[in-house]
């Protein structure tokens, strides 16, 4: 079992992006070294989607660089 698998067994976390506050700037995609986020077009609006939540390292870089204060991480 890889270390990340072991870790994911003991941790549950949930990343949410508030679609109202997200401005689709892509800062989270840029600062995340673990490629958690993708920018997707939903309806007419571009927003960040935390597709690969399990890869998150909880470093808070995305929250710290989010100009819309749109990201919440619960763990």
């Amino acid at each position: 079992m890889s270390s990340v698998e072991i870790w994911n067994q003991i941790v549950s976390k949930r990343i949410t992006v508030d679609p109202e506050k997200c401005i689709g700037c892509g800062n989270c995609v840029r600062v995340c070294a673990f490629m958690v986020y993708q920018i997707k077009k939903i309806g007419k609006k571009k927003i960040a989607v935390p597709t690969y939540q399990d890869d998150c390292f909880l470093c808070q870089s995305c929250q710290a660089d989010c100009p819309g204060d749109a990201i919440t991480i619960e763990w």
Partner: protein
Amino acid sequence: MTILTEKRVETDILVIGGGGSGCFAAIKAHDSGAKVHIVNKVPWLGGCTMVARAGYSAAMGEQDSSDSVAGHVQDSLKAGDNMGNEKVLQAMCRGNVDATVDLLSWGAAFKKRPDGSCDLGDKPRPGHTSPRFVGVSGDYSHIGKTIMDALQPQIKQRGIPVISNVMITRLLVAEGEIAGAVGIDWRDGTFIIFNAKAVILATGGTGHLYQYTDNPIYITGDGYGAAYRAGAELVDMEFCDFQLGAYAPQELFGYPPNCAFWMSKGAILINRNGERFFKKYLPHRQHEAECLRTEISRAVAWEILDGHGSENGMIFLNCSDVPKDWMMTARADMVSHFKRVGIDLTWQPMEVAPGNHTYLGGVRINELAESTTIKGLYACGEASGGWGGSNRLGGNGVASALGLGVAAGKSAAERRVAAMPRIDENQVRQERRKLIDIVDYKGGISPLKVKSKIQKLMQEKAWLKRDEKGLKSLLDGLAKIEEHDLPKICLSGKRQTQRLLALRNALEAINLVDCGKIVAVSALTRTESRGSHQRSDYLNKDDDNWLKNVIVYQKGNELQVRTEPVVK
């Protein structure tokens, strides 16, 4: 913009920084009877500790007399060319054992033996004379999370208030003694003035001074900058440690693959022409895996600077000789990450370069973790410096956070009985003016541009190939940025949250310029190559002249530098 409403907070001890070090300092100060506040730049506790991988060193063998704190101190001194401060190391290694005992009692999920004690491994790690490796199962696991998982509930349980999203911009000092600090809540714009009997800096390093770094985005030398401007001495700032990381393609920027481990499994470094190059720089080594971290980082940086890097300015780490079964099991997560950007590690290489990892220098402290110049100012973890000498013993990064955190918390708590110091309101007004000037300035340049200008300069001139000419032009460049760019920073954006984030970025740029100057001057002063400080015009170690600390401080508005023999 409706910002800069004022708020005042009074406390015995103000801890700046919410990583492992800050949490331990806060817990220890609280348990000694002091009223404590933690102020944290990011939303919740964790900080740079969260990205720590693998494990850390602690002399836990002390409990069955197979090891001793003194042994850990001696090994640390040896790793740093005997340039570390023995008394501070003593406090750190002692505190580190206490911290580990606490963490175990708080249920930290470290790797344990059947009797419940820490499993320290069978043999000593490189540089250690005894097994001391405190880790989690798995060879590259998330130790930082394990530590923070145990620490967070302790902070909550004690009811220690954590003030989040606040960046401290200035320390308030009156007559050589600390009186508090001021900062800004970069989410709602409140200007906060803390009145405190003691301040503990646990702000980490300044990874984002360089373009390439594996640190979280908010690690920008806020503690170094504030301490320097308040008149504290900073020591050994030329020793910044670089580690190979993935910085291309862009999606992977900052990814830490732990190259040393891959190389120990047979991965090799090649340049753009497909040549293995390490022998050119390290003829006495047989394989990349044998080289010390500083040696291999320097070799890679020089090869890149000689123009033999990839199109992205990186060196290739060829993993095709690595056993596939190990790759597919122990590193399955990394294989899948690289696959996501179209790189199949079984036959395609990673692109790596040395990125800024940790700082060995920092605020100069004594064995009580107190600043040598400002009474009542304490520093722990990466924010403190001078304890480790020119190189850091493996596993001492987290150890310094925990160990010095314990030491700082305990010593700072002694000041709880003192009278509340009076704040010099002039300093508060000046700082408020500075913030308002930034907020009100219209039509200038964006703070992000200034930041990246600084990072590019540092990367070009003060990476792993430093020389007098480059460092002098770096200082000129930084002086120009300070004179022309910093005063013209403007905050754009439709929303208030955008403008406030820009304000934080502007304040970080100010810290980066100060840190850049400190690193450049320290590096210029040390005319030798040693540990992580590598100069191309002084290639050798010079023990006759340079068993000294380089100390930088501000007097008036001028940066001063002096050297001093290592403290014994």
